[in-house]
């Protein structure tokens, strides 16, 4: 509770930090804010045009020329958010060592700034994707709202995991290095560029153990098939996310005092 109050009293700082971080990226360039749109636009176009149109990849069980492109975007964009939040949270204490050593302020502001910054980037690229869906007549309708709870679970999951690893990373910098590798494997072990159906049966069973698989498949279900997510399959991930957040808080409280000494 005390953490929440402290964070609330520093909301101004969190807000300006997110804003500043966002502006800093484009401030010294000529085109400025245009880059903010150009890069994601290029990415979305590549996925959709190259894979659907040029390579003519088709997705089993879904109609439409853009089905595979949309499938790809649904998984890649949300995975991108996950990877960004996790990757930056892991290094958040190490990167801000100087600030932590010299100033006394609620330290959980830092992961929050990371999260909000990543969500902002995500909303731009995802917004472009939604525009494409509307323009091409592939918008799923009311089912779209089903994305919100899924996104919420994903945020909980990545922040909880991120804070735990961030504390670890202060004491053992190996964690940051190791995680870059783990993330690679994790990406290919999640049905993002391929559908679950192409996997042999025995591998497919093990996907139950991958909490990200349930999340990504929910996004795909909404965006590609216009079906509500399978809430039951999401439940284990949700519980795990809650557990991680809870453990993260305990873990953080236990080691925060030592953290500054180690930085």
């Amino acid at each position, binding site marked *: 509770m005390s953490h929440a109050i402290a964070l609330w*009293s520093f909301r101004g700082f969190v807000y300006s930090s997110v804003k500043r971080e966002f*502006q*800093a990226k484009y401030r010294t360039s000529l085109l400025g804010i245009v880059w903010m749109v150009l890069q994601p636009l290029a990415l979305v176009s590549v996925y959709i045009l190259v894979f659907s149109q040029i390579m003519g990849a088709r997705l089993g069980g879904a109609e439409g020329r853009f089905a595979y492109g949309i499938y790809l975007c649904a998984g890649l964009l949300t995975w991108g958010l996950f990877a960004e939040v996790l990757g930056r949270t892991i290094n958040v204490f190490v990167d801000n060592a100087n600030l932590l*050593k010299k*100033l006394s302020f609620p330290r959980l502001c830092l992961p929050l700034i990371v999260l909000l910054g990543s969500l902002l980037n995500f909303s731009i690229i995802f917004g472009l994707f939604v525009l494409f869906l509307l323009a091409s007549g592939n918008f799923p309708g009311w089912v779209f709202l089903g994305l919100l709870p899924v996104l919420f679970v994903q945020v909980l999951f990545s922040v909880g995991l991120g804070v735990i690893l961030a504390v670890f990373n202060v004491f053992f910098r190996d964690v940051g290095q190791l995680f870059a590798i783990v993330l690679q494997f994790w990406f290919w072990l999640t049905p993002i560029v391929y559908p679950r159906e192409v996997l042999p049966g025995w591998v497919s069973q093990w996907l139950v153990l991958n909490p990200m698989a349930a999340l990504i498949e929910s996004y795909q279900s909404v965006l590609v098939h216009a079906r509500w997510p399978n809430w039951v399959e999401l439940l284990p991930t949700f519980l795990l996310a809650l557990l991680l957040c809870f453990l993260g808080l305990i873990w953080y409280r236990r080691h925060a*005092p030592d953290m*500054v000494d180690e930085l």
Partner: protein
Amino acid sequence: MGTMSARGLGKAYRQYASRWGRLAEWLLPWGSARHELKWVLQDISFEVAAGEALGIIGMNGAGKSTLLKLITGTSHATTGEVRLTGRVAALLELGMGFHPDFTGRQNVFVAGQLIGLSGQEIAHLMPEIEAFAEIGDYMDMPVRVYSSGMQVRLAFAVATCKRPDVLIVDEALSVGDAYFQHKSFNRIREFGQQGTTLLIVSHDKTVIQSICSRAMLLADGRLAMQGEPEMVMDYYNALIAEQGQSTVVQETLADGRVQTVSGTGEAVVTQVTIFNSKGQPVDVVRVGEPLVLRVMAKVRAPIESLVLGYSIKDRLGQVIYGTNTWHTGQALVGPKVGAIYVFNIAFDANLGVGNYSVQTALVASDTHLSSNYEWRDLAVVFSVVNVDKFAFVGSSWMQPVIEVGQVDEVNAVNLATDRAPSQAGAL
């Protein structure tokens, strides 16, 4: 509001034999502790009442910075606790949270929010911050084009834009030009006068003595001494001069002040007396009276050279005047063992009204840091009274000649641009 207290404060860092030690300790709950504690601060207790100013001194590595971190809360104490009341501001490092690509004004907002101010408050205080920093148009330019002095000015202006109940100052102030140092220092002094509790870490004797009502000496992570700034400062200076060569003795004089005598003892001062123009020993002198300070020194062991240094200090221990016989070209080369040398120093007491003390030093050359035979604070004390001069204030008597006249307006303009009459005549 604005009190500070520490009880049994201690800080130890954990030292592991290897990095794996910590991992084992984390993951194996049944295992014994695999670290050793390295104590950098132990058993520090003190109280600072609201509005008081406490100075902390100590050599490098004595634990001053660690203590400040514990007090500000960036680092956690291993033992004991710190209690603070009121709004605390710390000037440990200036310019935290500045981003080089943003303008000074934008950075002021973030830096201000980082110390707990709201956006509204900052907007309200912005004109004052701008005025204090005196960086003009640079306020709206990116911080990366600032000189380091400008950054410090702006950072200081933000950090002190609102008077805190407790202000913690590290030696950060030794940055910036003389003008800004003076200005920032005045602000701290004003805060003190308005009731802010101050905690100042500095090596600068004048800072400690002119601002602080009490000083604390840290040595090897422990509280070595606490008391009057002058006494603690004298002890500290003696400690530096010593570096373990011999002992430092402090005695309480009849008037309750503490005299510090230190040195290796090859030569010692046996007597210090002040005589007036009639040759009578005195301890109360008139402003401007001709005096003779007589110092007798005995050589107890063979030494290459002997230099007598002395300084006259005011009530706060600040040096009003000081010199030595090395500077005057009167160093004694190869003084005889067992001989007593006499130094007669004649001067006029061109001092303001007040109490003064004389400190003597017997050394080998121009500094007491190389060979320090004896260093004696409060060797003799005397008071200056104003009997036959007109009233004046200050620490020096500078007899003026004041001319008063009347001029018409045209001449007034000319006079304002002309040189002063005496200077014009000289040129």
